[in-house]
């Protein structure tokens, strides 16, 4: 049977294919989702200086920090996807 079907290559293609072909777009979408959430949060807590000159209360600062963290997570997601594309191109070139 294995002389007809290269099972070894087959399962690798399926598993790595799922990781790259479905996993990477998922990571990309996760990036989009966190980015969009971060933008909405940042828009909701637009700092309004109060009488003392401080910007916002504790909860506002926490929200702003969360928005920043989400931005970082989104950036990481996009970086992973970009790295994978870079690897893909490098792979095509080195394969030649």
């Amino acid at each position: 049977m294995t002389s007809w079907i290269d099972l070894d290559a087959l399962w690798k293609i399926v598993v790595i294919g799922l990781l790259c072909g479905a996993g990477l777009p998922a990571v990309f979408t996760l990036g989009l989702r966190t980015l969009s959430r971060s933008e909405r949060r940042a828009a909701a807590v637009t700092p309004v200086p109060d009488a003392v000159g401080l910007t916002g209360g504790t909860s506002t600062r926490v929200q702003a920090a969360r928005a920043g963290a989400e931005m970082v997570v989104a950036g990481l997601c996009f970086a992973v996807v970009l790295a994978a594309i870079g690897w893909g191109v490098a792979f095509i070139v080195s394969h030649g």
Partner: protein
Amino acid sequence: MASDGRRRGHWVRPSRSASNASYNGFVGDTALVLVVVTALAFDFTNGFHDTANAMAASIATKALRPKAAVAMAASLNLVGAFLSLSVAATIASGLVNTHLITLPVVFAGLAGGIAWNLATWYLGIPSSSSHALIGGVIGSTLAAAGTDAVKWHGLVQKVVIPAALSPLIAVLIAAVGTFVIFRISRGVRQETRDRGLRLGQVGAASMMSLAHGTNDAQKTMGIITLALITNGSLAAGSKAPTWVIMACAVALALGTSCGGWRIIRTLGKGLVTIEPPQGLAADSSSAATILLSSHFGYSLSTTHVASGSILGSGLGSRDGRIRWDVARRMVTAWLLTLPAAGLVGAGSYAAVHGIGGTAGVAVGFVVVVAGAGVLFGLSRRSPVSHRDLHEEPNGPATAETAAARSVAETPVAA
């Protein structure tokens, strides 16, 4: 072809001038020129037949405008063809006994491939160009040297089984991808989601075009190199000469830039309704499957993978509508590709061999050109152009306009 003379100049050995070339050498060269031109013509049909694989989904989701998509696919095909050169082993090795191959066999095989590619293009069916070429070459080899000349085990192992498995793998990956993308992007404003996903899709489609260029241009490079070796212009085991690489890259890119709108319409609009989540999933699945399989030495057809991915993206979404009659027609064409191209290949060989020598190849060439002309003439009666891809009165065009309006009305955060 204005550049024939220039091309010939490259492969005639420097010591041999036109004046002292023997009559036989001249005859061989003429047949060789015809075979090379036919091979480049096949490469051209390969290009416009397969534009859809890389770009149909991007056009359907409006990630790219039709003309921009085709131009991008063509440039990346061109780049891809130059990037990867070592694989330019002949497509025939492992499938037929190459020492039995003659120029008429190569020519007849190409004729079979071109005939099937043009017929399926006319009908708007995405079918595999590699299978058309393989079928043609096997048919002509069978007609020339009998069943012993074909390596049946290699054919089943390298072509038939991967052809059956590759669409299934692509369906699985794209279906999972679509499901996950819809799931994760739930709650994200639709226009934000679609804008982002379209951007991602352009990236995935670019990878796919690049991979397509590296794979498909090489098939023709292999065939031309095989013809040159058969003719004695190159030593056995030689790599493709630079002019072959350049000619093949340009022929594929030119074909791609013409845009096979008929097939793009089928894949982009006929099979499933493609929205940005499906588009990104389908193109990522195709790019990953093709790159991985070429890495693991598993030869898959780009067309089967791309069509499988699009089908899978329909299966993965809850409201994805799949037009099963179109899918059935497509799979029937896949099953017919090898035998049909083989029959034309065998018939062409019988005709070319019957007439004999260069005259046979020349007559075959004229018939191929005439056949292509007739099909092109027929296609003008029901032309399909890039304008036919976005004109749906109640379809995505209105949704797009609505989305654009709501984007304009929504204040942009950050």
